[in-house]
C-alpha cells in the first residue's frame, strides 16, 4: 500500500498549494445557505388584499375590523378598499392585488339570522404559496368572527396542545445540513472528479500507469486523498455555517467529533460514487457537464430543502438510494436535535456501505492500460 500513500502525498501537496480549490467548493453552499435561508425563512408579509364591501352592515364592519387588526398586527395583509368588484378583479388579474375579499350585500342579514353568512376570497392561485397564506389568514379571520363574544368557563370543544421538543428552528438552520453535504459534494467534484479527469487528459496518469502500482492502490490513493479534501471542506463549512445560522453550541467537543465521523462517511461515499462515474471518462468536459445534473439529482430529493413526504413516488425512489438523503438526515439529527450516534447509526452504515460498493465497482472498471 506504500504506492497508495505516494498518490495521497502527491494529491495533498498539490492541494496545499491550491487553496482556491477549497474556497471554490465553499462559495456555492455558503451562498445558498444564506440566500435561501433568509429568503424562505421568514413569514409572508404585506400581501395586498382588496376588500369589496357590498353590505356595510354591522357584521360587515366587524369583518373589516378583524381584517384591519391583522393588517396592523401580523402585517400578513395590507388592505385596499374597492367600491367596484369589477375593478378589483381586474386588478387581481393584473397583479396589483393578491386577493379580493368580497362581503356580499346579504352578509349582515344572513349573519344576524344565522343563515349561512358567507364572504368570498378570490385569490391569484398562480402562486400557491401566496394563495395558501391568504386563505389561511382569511380563514383565521372568519374563525375569529365566528367565535362567541362570551367565553365558556369550561370549554366543551376538544383542543390540541402542541408541545415542541426542540427550540424553534429557523429555516436557515434547517438548510445547514444540506449545505454541509453540498460543500462535501462540491469538493468531491472540483478537488476530485474534475482534477482527476484533467490530469488524465493532460497525460499525468500515463506517468502512473508505467509504474508497478496496482488498480486498487491507485483508486485507494485517489479515494483517500479526495476524502481528506472533502472532509476539510465539510468541517470548515460546518463551523462557518453554524455561526451564520446561529446553531447553539457550535464548538461543543462531542458534537464536533460526531460531525467529523459523519462528514468523513459522507465524503467517502460521495468520492467513491464520483470515481465510479468517472472511471471510464476521458473527456474533461464530461465532469463539468455532469456537475449540475448530479447536484440537482442528489441534492433536491434528499430532503435538504423540502420534506421528502411531499415528493412523488419516483422521486422518493431516488431518495432511497441517494447518499445525500442519509447524510442530510444524520446532519439534521446532530445539528438540529444534538443526538448521539444511536440516531445516525443506520445513516453511517448506509454511507459506508454505499462507498465500499462504489469503490469496489470503480476498481473493477478501472483500466490499467490507456
Amino acid at each position, binding site marked *: 500500500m506504500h504506492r497508495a500513500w505516494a498518490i495521497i502525498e502527491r494529491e495533498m*501537496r498539490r492541494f496545499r498549494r491550491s487553496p482556491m480549490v477549497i474556497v471554490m467548493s465553499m462559495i456555492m453552499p455558503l451562498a445558498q445557505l444564506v440566500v435561501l435561508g433568509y429568503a424562505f425563512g421568514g413569514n409572508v408579509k404585506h400581501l395586498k388584499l382588496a376588500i369589496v364591501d357590498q353590505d356595510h352592515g354591522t357584521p360587515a364592519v366587524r369583518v373589516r375590523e378583524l381584517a384591519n387588526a391583522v393588517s396592523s398586527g401580523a402585517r400578513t395583509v395590507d388592505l385596499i378598499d374597492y367600491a367596484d368588484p369589477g375593478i378589483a378583479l381586474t386588478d387581481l388579474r393584473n397583479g396589483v392585488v393578491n386577493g379580493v375579499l368580497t362581503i356580499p350585500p346579504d352578509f349582515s342579514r344572513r349573519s344576524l339570522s344565522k343563515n349561512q353568512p358567507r364572504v368570498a376570497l378570490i385569490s391569484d392561485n398562480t402562486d400557491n404559496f401566496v394563495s395558501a397564506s391568504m386563505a389561511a389568514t382569511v380563514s383565521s379571520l372568519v374563525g375569529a368572527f365566528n367565535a362567541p363574544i362570551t367565553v365558556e368557563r369550561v370549554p366543551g370543544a376538544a383542543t390540541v396542545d402542541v408541545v415542541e421538543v426542540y427550540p424553534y428552528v429557523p429555516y436557515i438552520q434547517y438548510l445547514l445540513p444540506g449545505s454541509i453535504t453540498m460543500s462535501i459534494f462540491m469538493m468531491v467534484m472540483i478537488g476530485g472528479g474534475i482534477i482527476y479527469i484533467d490530469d488524465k487528459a*493532460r497525460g499525468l496518469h500515463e*506517468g502512473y500507469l*508505467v509504474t508497478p502500482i496496482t488498480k486498487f492502490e491507485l483508486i485507494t490513493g485517489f479515494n483517500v486523498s479526495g476524502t481528506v479534501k472533502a472532509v476539510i471542506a465539510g468541517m470548515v463549512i460546518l463551523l462557518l455555517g453554524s455561526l451564520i445560522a446561529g446553531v447553539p453550541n457550535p464548538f461543543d467537543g462531542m458534537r464536533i467529533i460526531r460531525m467529523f465521523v459523519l462528514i468523513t462517511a459522507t465524503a467517502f461515499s460521495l468520492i467513491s460514487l464520483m470515481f465510479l462515474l468517472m472511471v471510464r471518462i476521458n473527456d474533461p468536459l464530461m465532469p463539468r457537464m455532469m456537475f449540475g445534473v448530479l447536484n440537482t439529482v442528489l441534492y433536491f430529493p434528499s430532503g435538504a430543502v423540502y420534506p421528502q413526504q411531499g415528493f412523488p413516488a419516483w422521486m422518493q425512489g431516488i431518495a432511497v438510494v441517494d447518499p445525500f438523503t442519509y447524510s442530510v438526515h444524520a446532519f439534521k439529527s446532530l445539528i438540529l436535535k444534538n443526538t448521539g450516534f444511536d440516531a445516525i447509526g443506520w445513516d453511517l452504515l448506509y454511507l459506508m456501505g454505499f462507498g465500499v460498493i462504489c469503490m469496489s465497482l470503480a476498481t473493477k472498471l478501472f483500466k490499467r*492500460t490507456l
Partner: protein
Amino acid sequence: MIAIDVKNIVKKFGDFTAVKGISFSVEAGEIFGLLGPNGAGKSTLIRMLTTLLPPTEGTALVNGFDVKQRADDVRRSIGVIPQAMTSDLELSVEENLLIFAKLYGVPRDKRKRLMNELLEAVELTQWRDKPVKMLSGGMRRRVEIARGLVHEPRVFFLDEPTTGLDPVSRTNVWEMLQRIKKERDLTVLITTHYMDEADKLCDRIAIVDHGQLVALDSPLTLKASVPGQNFVEASFSPTPENWEERLKTLPFVAAVTSEGRVFRIATDNGPATTTALMDAAEAAGTTLQSLSVQSTTLDDVFVHYTGHALRDSIQAPSAADSPFMIRRG
C-alpha cells in the same frame, strides 16, 4: 544480451491497424531509435513495450519479461518518458522525483542518494526546490528524464523527448542522455521524427512508416545503402528538352529526380559530377541558376525507403488523443 525482443507485434484500434507486424531486437547497452513521421505507429509501439497498451497480436519481451504475461516485472525494470509532459507542475523538481521514487518502491535509504545523483546528472541541483511550472521546456524535460531513472531501470524508453524544444535545449538533452547512458549502462529506446536526433544519438535506427518497419540498421549503413554518396541540387533557366535524361548520362550519376525546375542528382563523386554538370549546361545553352552539393542524410534514407519525405506526412488521430493532451508525435 538482448534487452528488447519484439516479434510480429500488431496493434489494432477497431478497423484501423496502427502497427502491422513489426519485429526487431535491441541489444543491451544500445541506443535504438524508432524514426518515422507523425502517425507512423512509433508511439503505439512504445506504448505496447511499456505496457500502456496491450498488443493485439505478437510478442514482446523487455528485459526477458513478456509485456502481456509479466507486465509488473516489465514496469519495475523500465523507465519511461511518455510523449506528454507528465511532471506535476505544482510540485517542485525534488517532490516530483520523490513521489515517483515512492511509486516505484525505492527504499528510503537509497532515495536521497539516487535523487541527488540524478539531479546532478541532469544539472538541476540548484532548481530542486522550484516548482516545475517555473522551469523552461528543456528543464522540464530534464526533470522527466531524472524522474524516469529514479528507480535505476535497465531499459529507458523515451517517446519523442526533444519535440518542442529549442535547438540548444535539444543538444543539451542529447548530450545528457549519452552521458547518463554511459554512466548507468542503460539500454535506450527512443522515438523521434527528427533526422538529426536519430543520426547523432542512435547506434541503430528502425524506420517506421504506416505501421511497418521499412529499414533497420546503423545510421552509417543506412546512409550507405542509398544510391550515391552525394546529392547535387541544381536549377536551370531555361530547362533544355530531355534534360533529366541528359543528366543521367553525366559521370558518377546514380539517379536523377526533379521537382519543377530543380533537379536532384545522386552521385558517387560530387565534385566530378558538378564540373560535368556545368559543362553540360554551357553546351546546352542554358544558365545554371542555383547549385548545391550535399552528403547523404537520413532524409535521403527516409525518402529512399518510404518514397516520401518525412515532413509530408500527417498525423492519424490517436485513440488516446484528448483536448488537453500535449501531443507531439
